[in-house]
């Protein structure tokens, strides 16, 4: 009897909480506050991390800045909330943040059960393997019996287990809590292979005592589409976040960069004119200033610029575009027409 009452109470409370959580206009709230609260990682170089001065840098950070530029015309109107993997979805559900850009993989269960919506992917990642060249291995299929360095409790460990089981190979996981210690262990030779998201592997190889001694195997064993997410319940806000990401991709396709965006305003191409708000319509459709896309490109840059600045070949991570190239270059980055 007593237990039933407690269960009923909990049920009612959670219903109430749910009812409250999914009502109300996020966009209005954001505009009233005057800034966006963005949940970011805080510890992944190239995606979301403070630099030596405490200034936030990274691909995810720039995505959030793009949204701020679209809404307020000022990319700096953001309050960053560093979140752990456990906190990130709760923080979004509870309204502590308005926007989650924290290298979260879009999956069916997350999209449906957690009361949130993912928007356009801003980085296509996947899990890979890093091995010393001297082992003479060229394919992950040859890794039978290997000792594998892996981070605990993430999907990474699970994916690796699945991969070795499907291919009927033995493996010995060496589980180490932090990324930097993991790399140290691997370079000290305590394991044969290091497995992690491909974006991280490149960075790990870059800090090796001699990077040329290590090679990333061609197999990618999992799909990790990393996408920003918003709460259920405000489709207009979701559209704005979605098209802020798409605007960066579209700008790259149109050849508009933060450098030439002012000249492009004078372009006679109607596609460019519509995109930059010279021909009006897109802005009012989203409920934003007509200059919204211009502001994103001017202040943050197009997707290619953001990519190269944070994770591209000239950074410490030194990543190739790969899947993240434009569709015209064989990648997956594709934007619907802006009209």
């Amino acid at each position, binding site marked *: 009897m007593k237990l039933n009452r407690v269960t009923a109470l909990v049920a009612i409370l959670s219903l109430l909480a749910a009812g409250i959580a999914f009502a109300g206009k996020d966009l209005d*709230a954001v505009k009233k506050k005057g800034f966006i609260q963005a949940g970011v990682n*805080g510890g992944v170089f190239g995606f979301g*991390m*403070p630099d030596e001065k*405490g200034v936030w840098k990274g691909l995810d950070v720039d995505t959030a800045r793009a949204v701020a530029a679209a809404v307020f015309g000022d990319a700096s109107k953001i309050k960053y909330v560093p979140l752990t993997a456990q*906190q990130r979805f709760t923080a979004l559900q509870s*309204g502590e943040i308005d926007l989650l850009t924290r290298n979260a993989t879009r999956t069916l269960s997350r999209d449906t059960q957690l009361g949130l919506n993912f928007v356009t992917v801003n980085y296509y990642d996947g899990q890979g393997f890093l091995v010393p060249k001297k082992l003479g291995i060229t394919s992950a299929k040859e890794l039978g019996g290997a000792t594998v360095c892996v981070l605990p409790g993430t999907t990474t460990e699970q994916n690796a287990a699945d991969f070795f089981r499907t291919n009927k190979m033995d493996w010995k996981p060496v589980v180490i809590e932090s990324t930097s210690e993991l790399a*140290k262990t691997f370079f000290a030779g305590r394991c044969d292979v290091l497995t992690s998201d491909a974006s991280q592997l490149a960075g790990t190889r870059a800090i090796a005592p001699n990077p040329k001694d290590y090679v990333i195997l061609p197999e990618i064993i999992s799909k990790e589409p990393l996408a920003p997410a918003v709460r259920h319940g405000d489709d207009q806000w979701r559209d704005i976040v979605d098209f802020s990401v798409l605007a960066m991709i579209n700008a790259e396709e149109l050849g508009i960069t933060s450098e030439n965006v002012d000249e492009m305003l004078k372009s006679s191409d109607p596609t460019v004119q519509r995109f930059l708000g010279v021909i009006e319509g897109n802005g009012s459709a989203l409920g934003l200033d007509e200059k919204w896309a211009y502001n994103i490109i001017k202040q943050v840059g197009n997707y290619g610029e953001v990519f190269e600045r944070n994770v591209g070949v000239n950074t410490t991570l030194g990543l190739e575009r790969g899947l993240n190239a434009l569709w015209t270059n064989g990648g997956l980055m594709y934007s619907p027409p802006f009209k």
Partner: protein
Amino acid sequence: MNAPPKKPSREFLKPPVTEVGVLGWLHSNLFNTWYNSLLTVVVLLMLWQLVPPLFGWAFVDSVWNSPAEACRDIEGACWSVIPQNISFIVFGFFPDGHQWRPGIAMLLLLGLVIFSKDSRHWKKSLAVYWLVGLVTMGILMYGGLFGLLVVDTDQWSGLPLTFMLALFGMVAGYPLGVLLALGRRSRMPAIKTLCVVYIEMIRGVPLISLLFMSSVMFPLFLPEGVTFDKVLRAQVAIILFTAAYIAEVVRGGLQAMPRGQFEAAESLGLNYNQTMRLIILPQALKIVIPPSLGILLSTFKDTSLVVIIALYDVLKTTKVTLSNPKWTGFSTEAYIFLAVFYFICCYAMSNYSRKLEKALHTGR
């Protein structure tokens, strides 16, 4: 000009050189039995193997302030990871150019703590100093007055955050713990039950789970948009946690008081408050200084657990620095630095408690 007659005889009395001085000490302490001799030799050999390379790594082959690239080519320690990132490690997200504010606030705090150590300063005026000091610190940290830039608590990080969480955790947790201990020994059943339930509940869960609840579950029960400050939530969790542990220690002290003390107080006509304040607590709290210190020390060190709710205390800011690929390989140096920092703080605290014990010793 008579030579003192006793001098030569003294020379005869002098013990053999192997029994006095350095040699004598060595003989009686390190080589007095065959197994001690063996142990000494083995330990010396190990030290010989260990110390010179360690010394070389830390001091000879090391660099102290160079860019990260220079560190890749050397064999020794790369201490540069600290000075090159010191502003982020110490002050975290506090806006660049305003970092003198938390700097001064910390000095002020340190000054107040040192001032309060001296028992001659334990007067009512001390409370006033603390009040003034805390308000000044608040203004320095938060800003908003006198044209200072407003810095929200989510930008408080690094050393100031560590000190703040630790200090308020101890200072607020201690009196709360004393009250709980008194409550648990109360004759009023309602109060007693409440205190027992509270203490046992808090002691039954790890601090991490309290922090998790405060940061992950608690917000879900609030209406959307209503959010409490994250730092405040963690601070409250730490205070509640410390209080429960202090309560049990203090209860131990109270139980150690002989019945005679209570009876004596009653026979003097003192009421409950007076008995506790004037007779029982001063003695009981003195007894429990050593175990209390143990709890306060662990409170100080436990503040680093706020890492798991993404607050950037000094441990986390260091870790973030290390996740920059430039500095990733140098975790050993960074952790040694942190260990030294924590050791200095904890050693100072335990040193003070020993002095306090001596000063308050009344010879019972």
